[in-house]
């Protein structure tokens, strides 16, 4: 019958106004700030020379042909394939045909590659700096307060992290200090950003990680040899099994209409 004694702490209601609310508001505003900072930091794509654009676009063209081959009639697909493969293999679309077969220069010396790395760095910085700043701010101003009770129990391992600055040995782990409210908001505010900033904002971490793997960058990275890319694309086109989508469409239509 002996119920374990439930620890209760009577807290000043002002703790809500002076700790909980400020942290929440600051977290939301930081997310919005990060979104706009990322938008501003995004450098406009550099203008490329005509042969380079042609090199890039012709590779994309081969890729598109491979993707949408099924809507073409066999004859027109064969004609396109023959043209693309032969020009790929001859290197017609290369930006500088003289350097074909030579080893690529060191990517670190290429200014375009450096720019890409800088962009990635900026993204990471915009993520890291506010987090460190806010952690420091919370530790400096709000440490030592027990502000709330978690509705679910935790193992004692969390005690040192969640009750940092509270020097009470026997206090239940469920009573936590302001730093844990910071962690909760850090992970739980994603939908709030989604509603405020629209779905593809730069405020949340997931988009951050996805943004670093830019799909366009892998296609024609500066460190890849365009000649090799063309040759492999030609090979892909060669082995593609072409199936015209309108083949047997009459039978399918009749089968669909038949009751």
């Amino acid at each position, binding site marked *: 019958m002996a119920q374990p004694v439930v620890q209760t702490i009577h807290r000043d209601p002002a703790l809500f106004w002076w700790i909980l609310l400020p942290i929440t508001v600051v977290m939301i505003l930081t997310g919005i700030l990060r979104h706009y900072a990322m938008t501003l930091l995004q450098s406009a794509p550099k203008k490329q020379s005509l042969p380079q654009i042609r090199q890039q676009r012709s590779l994309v063209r081969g890729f598109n042909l491979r993707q949408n081959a099924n809507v073409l009639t066999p004859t027109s697909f064969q004609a396109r394939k023959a043209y693309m493969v032969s020009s790929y293999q001859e290197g017609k679309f290369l930006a500088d045909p003289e350097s074909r077969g030579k080893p690529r220069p060191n990517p670190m010396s290429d200014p375009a590659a450096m720019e890409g790395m800088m962009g990635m760095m900026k993204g990471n910085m915009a993520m890291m700096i506010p987090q460190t700043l806010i952690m420091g701010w919370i530790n400096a101003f709000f440490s030592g307060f027990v502000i709330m009770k978690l*509705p679910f129990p935790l193992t004692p391992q969390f005690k040192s992290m969640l009750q940092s600055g509270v020097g009470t040995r026997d206090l239940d782990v469920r009573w936590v200090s302001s730093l844990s409210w910071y962690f909760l908001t850090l992970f739980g505010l994603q939908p*709030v950003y989604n509603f405020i900033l629209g779905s593809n904002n730069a405020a949340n971490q997931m988009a951050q990680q996805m943004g670093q793997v830019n799909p366009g960058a892998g296609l024609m990275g500066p460190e890849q040899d365009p000649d090799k890319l063309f040759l492999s694309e030609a090979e892909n086109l060669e082995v593609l099994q072409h*199936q015209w989508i309108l083949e047997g469409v009459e039978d399918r239509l009749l089968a669909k209409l038949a009751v």
Partner: protein
Amino acid sequence: MNEERELAISPIVQTSVQHNTQVVSNIRNLTASLFGVAAGTLGLESYPGFIFYLVGTLIVSLLVFAVRAEGKPSEYFHRPLGDLWGGEVFSGLSSFVLTWTLFYGLVRA
């Protein structure tokens, strides 16, 4: 080969799939926060709280199934099981815990 052919005849448009996922994710996030408010106000603790969340998401799934997908989930979702019933359940959990803790702290403790 047969399945590939089916896909080519009636293709899956990536934009529509993304839009549907977005709609489901918005509904889930909003309802997860509201469930957190409810659980905190009711003063649920530990397991009952999480069970409350699971039951709530199940009801939301049923509602999405009945209202938004009009009972035909295969027309709106590529994989109905994963995208409608199981999708986004755990991404809503963090916002549920946030509002749950907040309202529990405000109302009860």
